């Protein structure tokens, strides 16, 4: 690991000011992704600005009837919160399905959103990778891409976004609060993460120095009927092969409204807007759920070895929506 300076931020503004002056500095959250990537030599900042003691770590009701979750809230505390569990079960389940108890106790909400891809070439500095070293090439296209993207990828990068939490936040339409060089602003989800295009090194729309301070969940009463399901290669403690976050509002057998996002299939948490609009007003039946899934997945462009994700995503989506329609 390259030597670096460590500074504990004393307040949000000075943390942002430090990063504005030092392009070689990065924020440190729980460190569960950053420290690992530094050890692997994937990133080598010259300074870490620890923001865990200045970014808010509380969960409160927001003025808009939703919840305001501080970016410093540890993933474990998020899953334990009664308001989150009661009103947005999909979010609690998504976070609980990620990593392990120990890592969730360390990881912060802000760091979780900005964790980097688990593409094996990205993590291996002896290999080319456009995301790590722009212009060096993408060995995953012809190499090991069984667990990479089927949607939204580009000729320069086919990686997936690894966060489970982000999939639930994209489904719920969360709003990310950011403190930047020019003051505070908000970024909607989906919209925080960006498709690779020909700039795969930029995972998000954030600018250098931007500090995530909170995530706001909108009021969404039907999210009490919501769920996250994750398919992985082993029963626990593995990244998603495919995952689905969904909330369903059903009355008299008809879908009034819904929110759907897919994980493990794209470079971003993939909000399934086509499926959502196909379902609004449709009968809440497995046949209609399948039709909506097919409409969404018609955009899929699987690679040589990951075509299995298309029927898998369809089946998991139909299964989750069917369970939600039958719940209570």
């Amino acid at each position: 690991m390259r030597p670096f300076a460590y500074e504990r931020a004393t307040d949000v503004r000075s943390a942002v000011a430090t990063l504005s002056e030092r392009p070689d500095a990065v924020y440190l959250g729980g460190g569960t992704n950053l420290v690992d990537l530094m050890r692997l030599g994937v990133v080598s900042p010259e300074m870490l600005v620890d923001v865990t003691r200045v970014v808010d770590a509380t969960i409160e009701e927001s003025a808009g009837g939703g919840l305001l979750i501080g970016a410093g809230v540890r993933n474990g505390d998020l899953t334990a919160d009664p308001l989150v569990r009661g009103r947005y079960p999909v979010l609690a389940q998504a976070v609980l399905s990620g990593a392990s108890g120990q890592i969730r106790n360390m990881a912060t909400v802000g760091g979780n959103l900005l964790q980097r891809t688990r593409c094996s070439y990205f993590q291996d500095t002896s290999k080319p990778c456009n995301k790590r070293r722009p212009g060096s090439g993408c060995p995953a296209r012809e190499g090991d891409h069984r667990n990479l993207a089927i949607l939204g990828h580009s000729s320069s990068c086919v990686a997936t976004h690894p966060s489970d939490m982000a999939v639930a936040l994209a489904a719920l339409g969360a709003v990310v609060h950011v403190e930047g060089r020019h003051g505070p602003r908000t970024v909607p989800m989906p919209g925080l993460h960006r498709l690779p295009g020909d700039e795969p090194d930029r995972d998000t729309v954030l600018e250098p120095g931007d500090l995530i301070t909170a995530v706001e969940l909108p009021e969404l009463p039907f999210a009490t009927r919501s769920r996250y399901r994750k398919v992985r290669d082993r029963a626990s403690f593995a990244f998603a092969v495919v995952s689905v976050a969904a909330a369903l509002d059903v009355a008299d057998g008809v879908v009034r409204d819904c929110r759907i996002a897919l994980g493990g299939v794209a470079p971003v948490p993939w909000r399934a807007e086509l499926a959502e609009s196909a379902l609004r007003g449709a009968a809440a039946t497995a046949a209609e759920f399948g039709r909506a899934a097919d409409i969404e997945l018609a955009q899929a462009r699987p690679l040589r070895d990951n075509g299995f994700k298309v029927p898998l995503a369809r089946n998991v989506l139909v299964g989750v929506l069917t369970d939600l329609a039958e719940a209570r």
Partner: protein
Amino acid sequence: MDVQLSVNQDQHPITVDTRETLLDTLREQLDLTGAKKGCDHGQCGACTVLVDGRRVKSCLALTVTMDDREITTVEGLADGDTPHPLQAGFIEHDAFQCGYCTPGQLCSSVGMLAEFAAGWPSVVTPDVSAAPHLDEGEIRERMSGNLCRCGAYVNIVAAIGQAGR
């Protein structure tokens, strides 16, 4: 950098390189070799310790971030000569073979039972908004961050189940 490290209620004013992880500091500066280095990437759980009562992976924690936190390692679980109930349970149930994963399993299960007592759900809890019930499936899921190469899982689950009752 100078750090005031509090481990098993002993104060250690130490000087560390910013790159040093808590795991390396414990093992190499403080001679507390209970926490083990298995993978050094957060994947195996052998390095699990408690920070302010919460279980964490010490291989991913930088020591410089640990100022004024209270750290408990496996060496600090016993009460004098009386082993912690989980330590006694692991012996009673023969919950290890080589023992390499055991300190991590012990610290993790202490932290896990505290999470459970506080009503935290897990991903296998049928209703995530309701209080969980500690059955074998819950223990296995909650302990999935701790691997055991010897495959002593059956007895580890039994030992934790008894202590959790």
